[in-house]
């Protein structure tokens, strides 16, 4: 059983909702990302999403955009992200890792070469923000061949007929976008999220993770009440940026600790939800 399937099966049997954390590989530093990922697991992450930095991250809000810019300035590359995943796997064989990025760096690397290198490094799935089902055939074939899950986004604007098309292609889990907008933006409408998740569930048995706009324990708790997992990204990066702004001498360990502390409080918020 894949790591993703095993993780969602375990969560289901425990009656808990999963927590997915997102950070950008190479931010705050390339050498610290592996340690950051381990700390996020300790703080309660069930699935790790690792952002692949891109020069033009069109779906990201300001917080994650700046993370991409810092990572690129630090010299992070797609190969560098794969190396980080491989290094993380030395000490953690269980926690699923999803890479999230944009088509061009992967296309440049080569779809088949990427799939092979990803499987070798211990990657479990891929979200390519700008590869909707219409453009996904080539990479999908490459990922399937090495049993990597291709994970699709479904947004509040996706019509029901299209949801059907997407879930038929999807593997691993469905990423339900909570708000119309970029990452980290907007006010979450819990009722709308509940309607969208219900619509998705009527068409697939795959687990549904909800992301975009989940900032704290309260918004996570509201989403966890209806979804299988909650994705938190911008808020973690923002926590690391803020501590560096407040304490210019803050060490990288302190910055990691700030993200981990926020994730832990979100985990506790979710676990206190009446489910």
């Amino acid at each position, binding site marked *: 059983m894949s790591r993703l399937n095993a993780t969602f099966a375990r969560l289901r049997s425990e009656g808990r909702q999963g927590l997915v954390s997102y950070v950008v590989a190479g931010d705050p530093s390339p050498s610290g990302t592996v340690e950051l990922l381990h700390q996020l697991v300790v703080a309660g992450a069930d699935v790790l999403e690792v952002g692949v930095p891109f020069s033009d991250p069109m779906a990201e809000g300001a917080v994650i955009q700046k993370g991409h810019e810092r990572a690129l300035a630090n010299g992070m590359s797609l190969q560098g992200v794969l190396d980080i995943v491989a290094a993380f796997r030395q000490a953690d064989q269980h926690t699923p890792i999803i890479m999230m990025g944009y088509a*061009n760096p992967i296309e*440049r690397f080569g779809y088949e070469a990427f799939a092979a290198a990803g499987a070798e490094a211990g990657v479990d799935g891929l979200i390519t923000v700008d*590869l909707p089902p*219409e453009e996904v055939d080539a990479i999908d074939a490459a990922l399937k061949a090495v049993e990597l899950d291709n994970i699709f986004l479904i947004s509040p604007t996706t019509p029901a007929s*299209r949801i059907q098309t997407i879930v038929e292609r999807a593997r691993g889990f469905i990423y339900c976008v909570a708000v119309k907008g970029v990452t980290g933006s907007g006010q979450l409408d819990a009722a709308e999220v509940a309607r969208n998740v219900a619509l998705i569930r009527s068409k697939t048995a795959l687990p549904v993770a909800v992301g975009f706009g989940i900032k704290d324990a309260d918004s996570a708790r509201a989403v966890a009440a209806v979804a299988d997992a909650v994705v938190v990204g911008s808020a973690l990066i923002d926590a690391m940026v803020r501590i560096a702004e407040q304490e210019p001498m803050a060490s990288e360990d302190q910055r990691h600790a700030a993200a981990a502390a926020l994730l832990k409080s979100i985990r506790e918020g979710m676990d206190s939800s009446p489910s």
Partner: protein
Amino acid sequence: MTIDITPELFASVPDAHGRFGPFGGKFVAETLMSALSDLEALYARLKDDAAFQREFDADLAHYVGRPSPLYEASRLSDAIGGGRIYLKREDLNHTGAHKVNNTIGQALLAKHMGKRRVIAETGAGQHGVATATVAARLGLECHVFMGEEDIRRQSLNVYRMKLLGAEVVPVTSGSRTLKDAMNEALRDWVTNVDDTFYIIGTVAGPHPYPMLVRDFQSVIGREARVQSLAQAGKLPAGLVACVGGGSNAIGLFHPFLQDAEVAMYGVEAGGKGLETGAHAAPLSMGSPGVLHGNRTYLMQDDDGQILDTHSVSAGLDYPGVGPEHAWLKDIGRVNYVAANDDEALAAFHRLTRVEGIMPALETAHAMAYAERLAADMSPDEHIIVNLSGRGDKDILTVAAIEGIEV
């Protein structure tokens, strides 16, 4: 690539997926897919609708001032001493550039979709001004995204947009130029997709934009074809246009694609010289990749990151190009060449002094190449250059380069 060039070939693109051969497509986040499908469906219905076409043509005639003249630049042609140079005077359109042809068309689509708010990206500011203009005319809220660097070098157009009631939103991410403005416009659209129409200014972006912008701009080539036959008695030996995203070039070229005897030259921004790397010439020097919703030629590094570009003209300062140009390059129908900053500046001055026509710096790239081309032709041949915009907006840039305080 060997491909049989038949008239049917050019009518066959884009296909139902928005592809021009391997280029084009719809590489966007899921949230936008539904808006693109709606636009595609609306346009499929309206493009052959007589009432819609009448409305578009009437606006072009009475608001834009079409047809634009085809002017024989006699003194310039005499001075060069080769083929005759004709200028398709898009600079005489309302707002001073070809951009308004497209914004008129897209604003009509926005109106049909009942959108109350339009957004646009702009580099040189010409598309921003053309969008702000149609928004003012239709009473639509208008936000124009513009890189901070471009706001600095195109301050006159920034003020024009503000006078027209648009909000100019400075973009501070990345290289702070056109590509970043397009990222920011896409982000706004994702956020406000329910009430907002994104008026893309060039033949790039996700399907159906490259197709519909081409269709709206093709009025340039349709007129030029008729005018060439009437005024010169035959089709031109060559067409020349500058290429940033490529909307004025595709507008001129498209109605001539089936005329095998008409050679075509798209002129990219050579910047400080193609050999320096400081340019904006993806067709000349780039490689295929995915950016801003389509697969096309891009300036990118070995890791697939998009490179910063350089051009003296803000409107050409873009690392990608419309997917139809990428395809026309690969099938060998259009020649893509480059003119550098210095050549463009020299051509700017020459046209201004010899013909009394001050071209935009973007357009000056096409003029620079046209002069070279005409020099090797005989006087019984002629070429048409798309004089895509006027140069008033650039006089502060030119003055600064020459160390003159205005």
